[in-house]
C-alpha cells in the first residue's frame, strides 16, 4: 500500500568553497496518515534539513518527497511549518497573524464569517482567545508559540511540520504546551512531523521516533515504535516501565552508539 507521506531516498548537498558538503545521505521514511513522528538527533545532524526538504524550503539533491501520491518540491500550506522562534509578524496582533494565513489559504473557499469563525476556533484550540488582540511583543514565549501553532493548524495542513517548536521555552511552559499539543492531536489526529532534541518530549508525544546518525552525510540510524497507550499522562508515565524502556533506548542510541565526537 502506498504511504501517506513518503520521503524517498533523499540526499542533499550544499555547495561550499571546499566542494559540496553532503548533509543528508539516502534518508528514506514512510509516514502514515495521522501518525505523530519525531526526529531526534544531535544538533547539526541535519534533522532540520529533513524538515526543510519536506516543507519545500530546500530542494533535495537526490530523491524526493511524495505526499499523497504527488511529489512536492516547493513550500505550500499543505505542509504548514511551526518555526522554533514562533515567527509571528510582530506588527500584527495574534488574531491578525492567524488571519493572514487563513485569508491566503481559504481565499474564495470560505466566506468572511466562516473565516472569522475558523480563525477564532483555532485560537480557542490553543487556549489563547483571551489574548487574541495582543501584539506578539506583549505575549510570553509560550503564548507566542501557541499562536504559531494556531496559525499552522488554521492552514488545515496535510502534514504539520514542527521545527523544535518548544526548544526555546522553559521546562514548565514546554510541558504545558506538550499537553496542549497532545489534546489537539487527540482531537484532530493530524499527521505531524516534529524535530526535537528532547528525549522525554519525543517519547511522550510520538508514535514513532526517528533517530538520526551524526553528520556529515547523516541518515536514519534507527526507528523506534512507541506503543504507549493514548491518552498519555506525564505523571503516570514517570514511573512506567515501558516508558522508561523507550526512553533509555533513545538515550542509548544518542549517547552510546552515536555519541558526538566533539561536544
Amino acid at each position, binding site marked *: 500500500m502506498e504511504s501517506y507521506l513518503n520521503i524517498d531516498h533523499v540526499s542533499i548537498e550544499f555547495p561550499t568553497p571546499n566542494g559540496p558538503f553532503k548533509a543528508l545521505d539516502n534518508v528514506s521514511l514512510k509516514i502514515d496518515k495521522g501518525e505523530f513522528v519525531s526526529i531526534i538527533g544531535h544538533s547539526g545532524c541535519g534533522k532540520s534539513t529533513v524538515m526543510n526538504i519536506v516543507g519545500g524550503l530546500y530542494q533535495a539533491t537526490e530523491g524526493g518527497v511524495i505526499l499523497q501520491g504527488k511529489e512536492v518540491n516547493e513550500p505550500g500550506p499543505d505542509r504548514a511549518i511551526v518555526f522554533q522562534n514562533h515567527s509571528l509578524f510582530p*506588527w500584527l496582533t495574534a488574531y491578525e497573524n492567524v488571519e493572514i494565513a487563513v485569508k491566503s489559504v481559504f481565499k474564495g473557499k470560505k466566506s468572511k464569517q466562516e473565516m472569522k469563525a475558523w480563525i477564532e476556533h483555532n485560537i480557542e484550540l490553543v487556549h489563547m482567545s483571551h489574548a487574541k488582540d495582543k501584539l506578539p511583543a506583549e505575549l510570553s514565549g509560550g503564548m507566542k508559540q501557541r499562536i504559531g501553532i494556531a496559525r499552522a493548524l488554521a492552514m488545515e495542513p496535510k502534514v504539520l511540520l514542527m521545527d523544535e517548536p518548544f526548544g526555546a521555552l522553559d521546562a514548565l511552559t514546554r510541558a504545558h504546551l506538550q499537553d496542549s499539543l497532545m489534546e489537539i492531536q487527540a482531537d484532530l489526529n493530524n499527521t505531524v512531523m516534529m524535530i526535537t532534541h528532547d528525549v522525554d518530549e519525543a517519547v511522550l508525544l510520538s508514535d514513532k521516533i526517528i533517530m538520526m546518525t551524526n553528520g556529515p552525510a547523516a541518515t536514519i540510524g534507527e526507528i523506534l515504535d512507541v506503543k504507549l497507550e493514548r491518552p498519555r499522562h506525564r505523571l503516570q508515565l514517570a514511573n512506567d516501565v515501558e516508558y522508561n524502556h523507550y526512553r533509555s533506548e533513545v538515550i542509548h542510541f544518542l549517547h552510546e552508539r552515536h555519541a558526538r565526537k566533539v561536544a
Partner: protein
Amino acid sequence: MLELSGFTWFIPLVKLATGEPPLQQLQDLFKMIGLPMLAMIIFLGLWHVGAAKVVTSLGQVPGPVEVWKQASILIDEHYIEREKEVKFHERQDVRNAKKLAKDPDAEIKKRPYTGRQTYFDQILTSLWTVFVGFFIASIIAIPLGIVSGLSNTLYSALNPLIQIFKPISPLAWLPIVTIVVSAVYVSEDPMFSKSFITSAITVTLCSLWPTLINTAVGVSSIDRDLINVGRVLRLSYATTVFKIVIPSSIPMIFTGLRISLGIGWMVLIAAEMLAQNPGLGKFVWDQFQNGSSESLGRIMVAVLTIGILGFMLDRIMLTMQKFFSYDKNAVIR
C-alpha cells in the same frame, strides 16, 4: 500622543497638573527644560562676549541682540510688503471698475503683484524645494531599495554605483544639473523656474543614497523565517512586499528617510546659493554680496532659521517614524 510627537518635556507638566507626586515631576521638568535652558543661556552669553571682540570689514560681528533686531526687521518688512500687495490689488480693482463703467466691453487686465520676496516667502520657497527634491528621491530610493534588498544579485550589482555616487558633493552636481536642465527643460510657459528645478534635482541626487542604503539593508536583514512563512503561504511577490517586507523594514526605511531629509536640507542651501533659487540660500548669498552693516546680522538670522527648520523637519520625520513603526517601545533618537 505627546510622547509620539517628541514633546516629552510636556509630559511632566501634564502629570503635575493631574496631581501626581510633585517632587519627581519637578525633577523631570528640570532635566527636560531647565538644563537645556541653562545651556542656551550660557551659549548666548558666550556669543555676546565673543562677538564683540571680532571686528570685520562690515563692522562688529553681531551679537544675539543685534541678530534679534534684524529678525524683527525682517518680520516687519514682511508685513509692510503684504500691505503693499493688498493696496496694489485694491488700486487695480478700482481702476478696472472705472474702466468697465466707462465701457462695458473694455478689456480688463489683471496684473500679478511683482513686489520683492519677503523673508517668509523665501522660507516657503526653500521648504517647497526641499520637499519636492526629497519626495522625488524617496519615490526612487524606497522601491529600488526594496528590490535590491530582496535580491542579492541586484544588490551586488548596484552597490559599487551607490558607494561611488553617495559621497559626491552637491556643489559638484550643480553645474551638470544646471546645464542639463537648461538643455532639456525648455518650454514657452514654464510651470517651474529653472532655478527651482535645478535645486530640487540637486537635493534629489544627494538625498537619494541614505534612504536607498537603509532600505536595502533593512529589507535584506528581515528574519528569514518571516519570509519562509510567506513562502509556505504561497504569497505573491507583491503581497510579500506589502504584507511582510515593508512592515518589517519600516524602521530602517524611516531612519534612511530622516538622514536623507537632513542631508537634503543642508544641500538645498548650497544649491540655492549657486542656482539662485529664491529661497534661504539665495537670501544668504544676496546678503553676502550686499555687504551692508546689517548683512552679517541678517545672515545669522538665516543661519538660525535654517537650523530651527532643519530640527523641525527632523522632528516631523521622527513622529512619523514612531507612528508607522510596529515597535512603539523602541528608543528612537
